[in-house]
């Protein structure tokens, strides 16, 4: 979704009406994180490392959306893509950390 958001801004196709497509996955991820926290409490505090990595991914994606909402109003084209490169890279790195943690836990 972060890559799609970057492409939409760079191509000038992102509007305020497009934002729910990008914010809805964040809502779902936050709901999942809340449920995972509840399950952690029910399991005597055991929390798999992948959940911490997931929390970090959610935080990076949230930051990405803030940056995207700002950039879409200030820039376009390749300048917009360049402005979003760092937040996008942070999301991709966090996503990879989740995958690594899930593989270590044999969940992926």
């Amino acid at each position, binding site marked *: 979704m972060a890559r799609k958001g970057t492409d939409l801004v760079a191509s000038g196709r992102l509007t305020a*009406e497009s934002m*729910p497509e990008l914010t809805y996955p964040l809502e779902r991820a936050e709901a999942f994180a809340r449920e995972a926290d509840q399950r952690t409490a029910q399991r005597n505090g055991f929390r798999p490392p992948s959940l911490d990595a997931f929390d970090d991914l959610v935080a990076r994606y949230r930051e990405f959306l803030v940056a995207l909402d700002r950039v879409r109003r200030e820039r376009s084209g390749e300048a917009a893509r360049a402005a979003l490169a760092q937040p996008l890279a942070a999301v991709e790195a966090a996503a990879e950390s989740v995958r690594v943690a899930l593989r270590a836990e044999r969940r992926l």
Partner: protein
Amino acid sequence: MPPDRPAAAVGRTPENVSHTYAKPGLFPPIVTARSPEGPTLTASGIVDVFAPPTDLVHKWNAMKAALRRGDVDAALEFIRIDSRQRYREMFTHLTVNLAQIDEVLLDIKPVRIDQMGAEFEMLRVEDGKTYSYFVLFVRDYDGIWRVKSF
């Protein structure tokens, strides 16, 4: 809330007590634990029994039909209550004539439906490229599924 408090769900341990609800909705079950030696304990809660909605494509088409005849108020009935003002402005400032709304709002296909929302996509070809537009339905305050965004 429909009453659905079965007396038949009885077990000797909590793991043995279960009940399957016959229809979707919000239910207020009451669980009573009785010990041969001690007092009874009672707990209550809310159970949300979910069934995937099956009429969302129909609602989408009904919203389009209302727009096609220029009835914005009727179209807004299919929009989530909190989003109506925003969509009222959008519907009244569309650059296309409402009679030609089918050129802008096409058919939708389900992508994923669960308790949080029903995601659909609307495919539209523009300048030779196919674009996927996101259409999201959610359960509104009154429990009715309506369009949150598209």
